[in-house]
């Protein structure tokens, strides 16, 4: 069984795009967001956890679409109904075992997955490692200011509120997504401390946006798969992934809706703000915290 690859990153860090790009390699299979390791048993995915972030139903749709595609070779209403039965037959199984079953089914292709929800908890990431001790991990990072701005642009910053990224001052509290950027990246670093160095790499998402061919070829060499022009050409077309579009009406999502709507990749050089730049989500002149700046510098941001 080919060891799977997991992308670990806070939300809004180019994960959908880069997951689909790597997944388009002829020796890989890019999955939608399965969210399996959020919970211990499959049936727990069918339990409502929150009425605050989107619809709980959405977090199951990636699994249903993946099962439909892998087992039925198509994503239709009927194939999704089959996938619901497939999941139902495995409701008492540990989610790690269910993931192993999927990975075996697509073997020898390398499963590539990213569910940003894994990174809010070290326990969730440890579940991945328990199921796949030889898994490889890419820690994908993005500059804290554009990432935080993007988090705040999504549903008025509900994610930041959900994880309590709040700056408490003497007489008021302000939603500040840089806290989530910092602490989620710290979660990832703490988790990666238990993963052998050769099974992990860190990459800045902006580098892939700017020099996709060189960076993707580098990832291929690290994974031990083909890095020729033809393979990299395939990776430049994330829109060709069967999961880079809306699914059937009973499992429409399984990924970021913006990505599902248009996933064509255009190389570009993202503009990186200075570390002492104004923060678009703060109107009180507060800048990045020293801890955030230090971590961003550790990741290679100037």
């Amino acid at each position: 069984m080919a060891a799977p690859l997991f992308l670990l990153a806070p939300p809004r860090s180019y994960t959908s795009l880069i997951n689909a790009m790597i997944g388009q390699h002829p020796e890989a299979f890019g999955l939608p967001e399965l969210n399996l390791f959020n919970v211990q048993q499959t049936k727990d995915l069918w339990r409502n956890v929150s009425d605050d972030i989107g619809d709980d139903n959405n977090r199951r749709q990636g699994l249903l679409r993946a099962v439909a595609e892998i087992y039925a070779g198509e994503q239709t209403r009927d194939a999704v109904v089959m996938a619901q039965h497939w999941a139902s037959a495995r409701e008492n199984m540990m989610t790690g075992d269910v993931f192993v079953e999927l990975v075996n089914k697509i073997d020898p292709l390398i499963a590539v997955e990213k569910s940003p929800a894994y990174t809010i908890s070290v326990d969730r990431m440890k579940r991945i490692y328990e199921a796949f001790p030889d898994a490889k991990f890419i820690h994908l990072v993005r500059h804290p200011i554009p990432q935080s701005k993007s988090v705040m642009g999504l549903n008025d910053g509900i994610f930041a509120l959900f994880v309590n990224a709040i700056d408490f001052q003497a007489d008021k509290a302000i939603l500040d997504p840089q806290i989530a950027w910092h602490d989620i990246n710290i979660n990832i670093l703490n988790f990666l401390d238990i993963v052998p160095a050769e099974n992990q790499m860190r990459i800045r998402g902006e580098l892939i946006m700017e020099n996709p061919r060189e960076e993707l070829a580098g990832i291929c060499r690290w994974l031990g798969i083909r890095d020729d022009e033809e393979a990299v050409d395939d990776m430049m077309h994330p829109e060709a992934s069967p999961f880079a579009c809306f699914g059937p009406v009973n499992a429409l999502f399984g990924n970021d809706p913006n990505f599902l709507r248009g996933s064509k990749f255009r190389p570009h050089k993202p503009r990186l703000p200075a570390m002492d730049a104004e923060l678009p989500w703060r109107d009180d002149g507060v800048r990045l915290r020293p801890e955030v700046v230090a971590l961003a510098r550790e990741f290679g941001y100037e």
Partner: protein
Amino acid sequence: MSQDSEKNKPGSRKGIGQVTTEPKSIKSEPPELTPQQQALRQAVITEFRSKKIKAFVAKQVKHINANRQVADGIRFLFDENGLPPANAPLEDIISERKKIESEIRWFEAMANEMRGRLVQIKEIEELALEMIENPPVDE
């Protein structure tokens, strides 16, 4: 152990906030917050909710018809020619709607049936308990 070696211990990097690692809902309070912080956090939630309600009311005014409002919310699913996604043709959307309506009717009928049975079994249970407490006296 010195402060430096503690810092360098694998897996021991510290966060700067009280980011919840297993959030259930924004309603659940992180236990490590002081009472004052809890009150401030509640104020942030109230402000967040009032902003959402304002945005909702603004949309309602724009689209008095609730169905049109829903349609507006999912417009992003359709392409520039107004066509639904390739994987979800109109026939499937209509058929799925009919299936859900039929399932709702089925579950409502089931719920009614179960409510009736619950009333019945409660009466039997009450009577049985009463009989145990006050057994009938043989004449």
